[in-house]
């Protein structure tokens, strides 16, 4: 286990290093920087003035110099720098945003699993029945509907039909849990449908496979109750690939949350990233991307650990 964790830690550091270099270069290779936004329309601004501001912001030297300066500050001082746009330190901006996105993602995953697991099981157990067709159709729709479209539809629907909208300013779960729930339930629903569909279809396929295996037949022949066979024997094994998929989905959910956060006015990580990209706010883009990559890597490590717990045949030491 220790070896496994050390290996994964090294891989995580390598991944984050690669991500940091890639994103660092990508944002700088995009046409335009914050200077072109600050000075847009200022016909009297000279190149000297622009270069002075570049120097003030630390984007005037070579890429190597800029990268080592930026990475050094993070590594040795834990300082992600200041936003070019607002001048505010990045850490509190992301600290505020990550709460919002984390809550959204957790709620989204919960909604997805809450519906996907029963639907997947029913669909497999009652194969080719009306319930199966219904569940498969739900899965097909879930895969086909873009989250941002559903989010817009929900906003329009609730405002037109019920003359109601979720709160549009962020309310923390500790200050008002019910208001917080009403604020997050619709965006979480919007981002969950794709994951719900994927997990449901995956679970159906694996359940169908597991239900035909010998040990399940043996359990039934021994007189084990049907419910116990389904839940303890079949579902537990069928969930192994589902856990993998759910782990990957966290990354996609963060990406999908960006637009949904904007629609529901939730200033989360994705919301900040979208705005940072349009404003060429390098420090905010880089920090946000690193954060997303770190979450992705950590979640996948956790998935590997859970894998071992679900299936004793798989040892993390291997």
């Amino acid at each position: 286990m220790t070896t496994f964790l050390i290996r994964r830690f090294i891989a995580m550091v390598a991944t984050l290093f690669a991500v940091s270099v890639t994103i660092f270069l990508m944002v700088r290779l995009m046409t335009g920087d914050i200077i072109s936004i600050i000075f847009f329309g200022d016909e009297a601004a000279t190149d000297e003035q622009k270069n002075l501001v570049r120097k003030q912001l630390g984007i005037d030297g070579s890429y190597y110099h800029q990268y080592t300066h930026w990475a050094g500050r993070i590594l040795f001082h834990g300082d992600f720098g200041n936003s070019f746009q607002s001048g505010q330190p990045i850490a509190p901006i992301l600290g505020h945003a990550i709460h919002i996105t984390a809550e959204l993602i957790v709620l989204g995953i919960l909604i997805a699993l809450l519906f996907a697991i029963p639907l997947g099981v029913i669909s497999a157990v009652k194969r080719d029945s009306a319930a199966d067709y219904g569940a498969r159709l739900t899965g097909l729709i879930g895969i086909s509907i873009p989250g941002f479209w559903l989010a817009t539809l929900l906003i329009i629907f609730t405002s037109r039909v019920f003359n109601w909208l979720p709160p549009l300013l962020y309310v923390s779960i500790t200050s008002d849990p019910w208001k917080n729930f009403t604020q997050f339930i619709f965006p979480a629903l919007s981002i969950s449908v794709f994951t719900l569909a994927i997990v449901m279809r995956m679970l159906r396929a694996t359940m169908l496979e597991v239900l035909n295996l010998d040990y399940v037949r043996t359990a039934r022949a021994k007189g084990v109750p049907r419910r116990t066979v389904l839940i303890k024997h079949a579902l537990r094994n069928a969930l192994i690939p589902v856990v993998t998929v759910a782990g990957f989905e966290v990354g996609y959910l963060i990406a999908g949350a960006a637009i949904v956060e904007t629609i529901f006015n939730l200033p989360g990580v994705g919301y900040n990233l979208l705005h940072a990209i349009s404003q060429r706010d390098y420090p905010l883009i880089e920090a946000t991307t690193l954060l997303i990559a770190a979450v992705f890597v950590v979640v996948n490590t956790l998935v590997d650990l859970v894998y071992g717990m679900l299936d004793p045949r798989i040892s993390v030491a291997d």
Partner: protein
Amino acid sequence: MSDKQTESSPLEREVSRRGLLAKAGKLGAGALVAGAVAAPAEAARSKAQRVAKTVPTGGTVTWALEQDPAFIAPFGATLTASRWGNEMMYESLLEWDPKLNLKPAIAESYKVSSKKSIDFQIRKGITFSDGSPVTANDVIYSFNLQAAPPAPGTSAPTSQLPAIDHLEAITPTAVRMHLKQPDARVYGYIAWQRYSSIVPNGIYSTKNMAVDGIGTGPFMLKGTYVSNDHVNFVKNPHYWKPGLPYLDAINFPIITDEQTRLAALRTGQIDGATVSVDGAAAINGAPNVTVLHGLTAAFRELQMTIKPGQTKPWYDKRVRQAVNFAINRANIIKQVYNGYGQYSGVVAAGYGPWVLSDDQLQNKYEKYDLPTAKSLMKAAGVSGFDVTLTTFSTPNDFAAIAALIKSDLSQIGINVSIVPQDTASFGANNSAGAFDWDLTARGMRGDVDGYVAEYHPAAAIYGKWFAGWAGNKTVFRDIGNGRITLDPAKRLPIYQDLNKVLADECLEIGLVSVSKWQVVNTRLKNMYVAFTDFNTGLRNAYVTK
């Protein structure tokens, strides 16, 4: 579409722009003039009190901002959205009324004391929202920071800054502004207020001005600005305009998605917001909302570069003129803006008397005249050519206008390739002159000079856009004279002449001035669409329930 323009505040106490500039004009002659800008304070106060009795007071308005201000510090080359985030609390020595007439604000009067100096008398008894009096030192401190803005303002707004050399205190409540040279731009720069706020002396060392601030405006900050979330204001109990503001508070949530703003307007969660022309059409007729629209300084134009050492068909003026006459602006207004818009020259339509009239534009300078366009192409010996037109990818109207231009110009043999770019890319290419043709937008300027400054060889951008242009002595002369001619009666003909010459040169081809759309709850009164692109109407707005 039913819509209405609300009237301006009943409290407006106008001093005409022309009147004020007429006084300023005497600066050029070196005369000492008492700028009796303010009407007698007592008369105004009693009038205000009479009016205030008829207007309901109290209540809170929630107005959604469509873009995050990023910060609310007053100084530096700030975003328009930054001004949206602080305009309720900051003011300057002068201000504009809704029709761009100059009015006194923090300064109750001014006196032209020499060719290159103006004395401003600070209004008696005026205080900041914390109750501290406004002094000459506050004014000097503020103007110093405008020229050299501290963080988060990263740069002075160079092209907007007039030639202010320095300020000195004459008395504790009067300042003398010394100019490097006579400069007619100074009044508009101050009255626009975008870059000329007055703040307490030393405030940058005591507060985080990115999220906090103190001013003399009708409202003061409640808490601090929260990025990507909100900025809220409450009534300033020390406000100097009698009876104002009517509202107790204004909250500005930041809602960037238009569908969400429209939904929030429907449900009454917000009292007002800016929307697109399509958004306005979508919500029009919904209960409890009123759709407002008005011309703003934002206009669209087609811009061409002329570079040295190259030969392109449009380097021939006749080809540029052909392009101008081949564009059907009426069709653009109809197709892209649902019929709401106006022809624009190089100066934004509606910018006081400094523009060519709509009649002159429609029937002469920007007339849709295909036969003339074809004959000009023929005279230039050009049968057609390919050109790339870069424009913004958002908002949608740019792509729509570009498509119509492409269609129009195909009739005179010009094959236009449209390249949409995001704002940062477009800005980078535009400021580097790395384009052939741009479909771009211009915005508000403190002074008419801001719309034509780039045609002068001394402008930094001239070398990137027009270095290969043979030049036009009339243009150069008019820009120089217009800047230093302080008598508006003499200044106006200079710009009328300049407008015509530039309309003939067609380096930048004015297209259309667009309407701005704002939707308000019917309980919100006295709001209007400000020409400046700010939400100034909220300062004097009130609610009926």
